[in-house]
């Protein structure tokens, strides 16, 4: 028999609220003597049992690795300044700095712009999820991002006004030409980017291990490495915490590795692969801006 067929109780709604909030004891005494409330709770408990009998869906294997692979490098926050330790002058100095910082932030935040868009295949205009977009100003790599997994979208924010070049990359594509974009203050520029696909690259070839370091020898985590061979891009990778990237060159012969890391100049390295298929190691130095 359902609760609606019993004598109604004015407290039923409160009783169910308490039960849903995980506080069933609040009305325990009342529920013990009220058939309507007991039936209502029984109905809710049965419903919960049925809902929870549905087994939990499990994520596909390798999902976490895919997220990590799509990440740009985690950059630590800048270290604290020594003057913070100055006890006597700290409050006054901190106030002055805060005022100046706020003023600067106000000025800068009102003079920066953004750019957003998507990367698509030129034929068919299908979005390319997990592609990469590099933003350059001259030789300097300003930012690197991967496109969203759903719509192939990207966005760069906090950009100083000026002219930038954007380069999209995706494996199995023809080497793209840079696309210029003008950033205006307080404005988001739209930038659709297109790639031409090439024939699928076979999953065999010569492993190319690239070690990326800055001019002091420190590994550059998250640097984007792009392997270029015969005018196409067969392989892309992001450097791990040790600054290592693993790429796969499908053919013997000349190849170029391009490297992009925010805050550094872009770099490239040319070499020739022997036909043996033996893995090779390349060292790339990045120059910090």
């Amino acid at each position, binding site marked *: 028999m359902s609760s609606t067929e019993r004598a109604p109780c004015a407290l039923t*709604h409160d009783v*169910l*609220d308490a039960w*849903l*909030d*995980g506080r069933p004891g609040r009305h325990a005494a009342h529920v013990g003597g009220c058939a309507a409330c007991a039936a209502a709770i029984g*109905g*809710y408990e*049965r*419903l*919960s049992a*049925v*809902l*929870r*009998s*549905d*087994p*939990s*869906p*499990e*994520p*596909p294997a390798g*999902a*976490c690795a*895919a*997220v*990590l692979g*799509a*990440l*740009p490098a*985690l*950059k*630590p*926050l800048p270290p604290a300044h020594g003057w913070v330790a100055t006890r006597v002058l700290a409050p006054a100095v901190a106030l002055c700095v805060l005022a100046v910082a706020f003023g600067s932030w106000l000025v800068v935040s009102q003079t920066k712009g953004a750019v957003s868009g998507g990367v698509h295949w030129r034929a068919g205009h299908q979005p390319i*999820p997990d592609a990469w977009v590099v933003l350059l100003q001259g030789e300097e790599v300003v930012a690197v991002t*991967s496109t*969203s*997994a*759903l719509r192939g979208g990207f966005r760069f924010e906090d950009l100083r006004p000026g002219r930038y070049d954007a380069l999209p990359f995706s494996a199995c594509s023809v080497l793209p030409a840079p696309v210029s974009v003008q950033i205006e203050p307080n404005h988001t520029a739209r930038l659709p980017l297109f790639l031409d696909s090439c024939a699928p690259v076979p999953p065999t070839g010569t492993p190319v291990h690239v070690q990326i370091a800055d001019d002091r020898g420190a590994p550059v*985590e998250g640097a984007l490495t792009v392997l270029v061979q015969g005018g196409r891009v067969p392989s892309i990778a992001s450097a791990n*915490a040790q600054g290592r990237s693993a790429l796969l060159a499908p053919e013997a012969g000349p190849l170029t590795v391009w490297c992009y890391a925010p805050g550094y100049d872009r770099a490239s390295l040319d070499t020739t692969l022997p036909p043996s298929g033996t893995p090779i190691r390349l060292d790339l130095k990045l120059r910090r801006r």
Partner: protein
Amino acid sequence: MRESAAGVDAAVLGRLREGDRSAFETVLRVYHPVIFRFAARMLGDPETASDIAQQTFLRLHASRRRIDPRRGLRSWLFTVAQNLCTSHLRRRGLEARALGSVRPPAARDLAEGVAVGEAVREALAGLPPDQRAVAILREYHGFTHEEIARIVGCSPGAARVKAHRARERLKELLRDVLD
């Protein structure tokens, strides 16, 4: 039932804000399956749920310095995932389809061997997205109404009303399973 992950927030968030990659990996390992399950139940589509979970963690990475520690990492992740799921459903126009077309599983179907799990998924898909989110957050993730209200962006009272309506609709949709 609340996931055992809840305690990870405070310890890890500070390190995450400082750019500690291992902290991000810890959060990912603990919360990715949880967020995936939420999205999978919201959307009924594991492939899209995987995309939503990935986007949620990419946003965590991008916004890690702006997360309010008082709000809690778990709530923050669910809020982002819920918003992404709602946007996805809105884009695809699934709300209208789900409201209009889902029917309660008939006794005949159940007798023919349709699993209870399938009936549950079909019933959840029959709820409007806001009620579905509230029901899933309450039933499968153990959030209180105050927490649910913050995640879905409504008052605690409105969250309670949505929860009651969701349960009444679920009871109706699962009538043959419950009887």
